């Protein structure tokens, strides 16, 4: 267990571990997955009593490279201003772990990975998974690292769904939960947008019924359209207007054709095209499905209040004013259910005009809140420095 004893510092350490060989992962669907691979990256150092671990949960198209350079894209990680020395998730104080979720495509078991039984990629033979299953895989990773109780679980968007699942279903294994720009269930509108994306992928003849990996083709057109549609939901009308308005793309006047006349078209096409190089189309189907199936109240007779009953987890919840994908109203429903059971919950609606993606941007207010919340909790629960 090298990571548990060594100081891996701010540059971090990444590996892929094989878990659940003797203790299979039982999925929500009833299927069994064993063994599973979990790819993760971690930073900082675990303290002596293993009480300073923070789990970071990524969003739909995220990965384990939250901080530092992503070796696949060559770009900077997706939460570099939240994780690091002296930052909110301070790697001088905490041991920060970010796993790639089950079903994804950065090394953790998913449709792209080989089925151990056949030695070939799973494709659509990979079982349909849920947010609960993603968390199930994370529990195995935390067990593997020898951590009983996480100091905090933090995530935005789909990451926030995992945070809430941890807090509701594994409440004895975390002290604090920070779900950001998230929701307690996927709404009809959320499901509708995802269905558009999935249909775009499956309508692409290069998808080949999910077995494109046996051909030279890839459903890039479909995946690109899926990403374009989804990307619109991550931004606000106001930020699109401010950034692009009706500005034309490298031209003086309309061309009376179907080329990208407008800057917004060009931008969306770029978002779509650059996405297909780094993401697997089948993973996109599986993960969007997992999000659609997500409803934290489902196992509690549809009652959010019941879901939170008896919780000892301390919550810090944030939403953004311009987020119309997972709105402030939805976060407030969580907050009110927590208040109804007398839970410790703080909530802030952050005024930011960049839409749902605000949580991934340079939002000093969010960083300050996470930082203050964690520092106060670390002090209160006497978390020792590594």
């Amino acid at each position: 267990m090298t990571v548990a004893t060594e100081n891996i510092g701010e540059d971090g350490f990444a590996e892929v571990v094989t878990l659940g060989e003797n203790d299979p992962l039982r999925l929500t669907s009833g299927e069994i997955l064993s063994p599973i691979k979990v790819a993760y990256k971690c930073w900082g150092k675990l303290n002596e009593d293993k009480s300073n671990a923070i789990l970071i949960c990524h969003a739909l198209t995220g990965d384990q490279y939250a901080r530092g350079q992503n070796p696949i894209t060559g770009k900077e990680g997706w939460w570099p201003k939240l994780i690091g020395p002296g930052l909110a998730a301070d790697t001088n104080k905490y041991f920060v772990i970010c796993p790639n979720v089950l079903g994804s495509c950065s090394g953790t078991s998913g449709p792209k990975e080989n089925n151990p039984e056949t030695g070939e990629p799973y494709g659509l033979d990979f079982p349909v998974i849920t947010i609960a299953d993603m968390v199930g895989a994370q529990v195995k990773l935390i067990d593997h690292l020898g951590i009983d109780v996480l100091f905090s679980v933090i995530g935005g968007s789909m990451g926030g769904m995992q945070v809430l699942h941890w807090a509701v279903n594994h409440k004895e294994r975390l002290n604090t939960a920070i779900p950001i720009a998230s929701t307690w269930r996927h709404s009809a509108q959320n499901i509708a947008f995802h269905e558009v994306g999935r249909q775009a992928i499956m309508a692409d003849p290069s998808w080949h019924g999910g077995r494109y990996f046996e051909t030279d083709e890839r459903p890039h057109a479909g995946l690109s359209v899926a990403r374009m549609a989804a990307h619109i939901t991550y931004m606000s009308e106001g930020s699109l207007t401010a950034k692009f308005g009706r500005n034309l793309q490298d031209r003086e006047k309309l061309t009376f054709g179907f080329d990208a006349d407008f800057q917004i078209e060009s931008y969306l096409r770029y978002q779509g095209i650059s996405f297909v190089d780094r993401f697997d189309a089948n993973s996109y189907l599986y993960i969007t499905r997992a999000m659609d199936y997500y409803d934290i109240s489902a196992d509690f007779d549809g009652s959010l209040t019941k879901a939170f009953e008896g919780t000892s987890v301390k919550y810090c919840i944030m939403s953004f004013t311009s987020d119309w994908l997972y709105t402030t109203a939805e976060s407030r429903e969580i907050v009110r259910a927590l208040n109804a059971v007398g839970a410790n919950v703080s909530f802030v609606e952050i005024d930011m005009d960049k839409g749902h993606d605000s949580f991934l941007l340079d939002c000093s207010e969010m960083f300050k809140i996470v930082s203050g919340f964690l520092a106060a909790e670390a002090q209160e629960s006497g978390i020792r420095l590594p």
Partner: protein
Amino acid sequence: MNQKSKNMHHRASDIRVDLLLIANMIPEGARVLDVGCGDGDLLEYLRQEKKVDARGIELSPEGVQQSVAKGLSVIQGNAEEEISHFPDNSFDYVILSQTLQAMSRPDRILEELLRVGKRAIVSFPNFGNWRVRLHLMLKGRMPVTKSLDYPWYSTPNIHFCTIRDFVDLCDELGIKIEKGMAINSTGGKISFQSLLLSNFLGTQGLYVITRS
């Protein structure tokens, strides 16, 4: 961490005198909701000195952020809206300090305070104070006081009252006043028992109310 440790060791003198008066009314270990808790100074003091189970509601994100950094559980939102989502009898004490006058319906908020709490502690600026009366009489203009220095057209304080008005309203709503006092401009208690004198000399009213 540094900011936290700076805030950790509060002494009684660190919080405002009127807040200290409120704090002194709250017993050890009580469940307390502070409606309009600002940066959480009173709740932090109560948690440290009285080991209360503290919760807050605050409108300003900055106030919530500072409260959260003190380890407090505070909900950002409109007090009148957010309090309605708390269950009946979830607190021993609900505090409404210097906020009553900013409520759109002070009567309804008083009833809400006593729905979610067994007792409420309410403090408010007293517009029956002689300086306010004199200001209106001599200048003929809406009083603007040192602590409430907004012009009439932009003030968030939309429902000023006098100590007498408050006592009358409690009476009308069937709310029992357990304890009441007037406070002078330096935050000291005014020792007069007479409502008339309290209303004349007090700059603030401070009341503990409960359902009768």
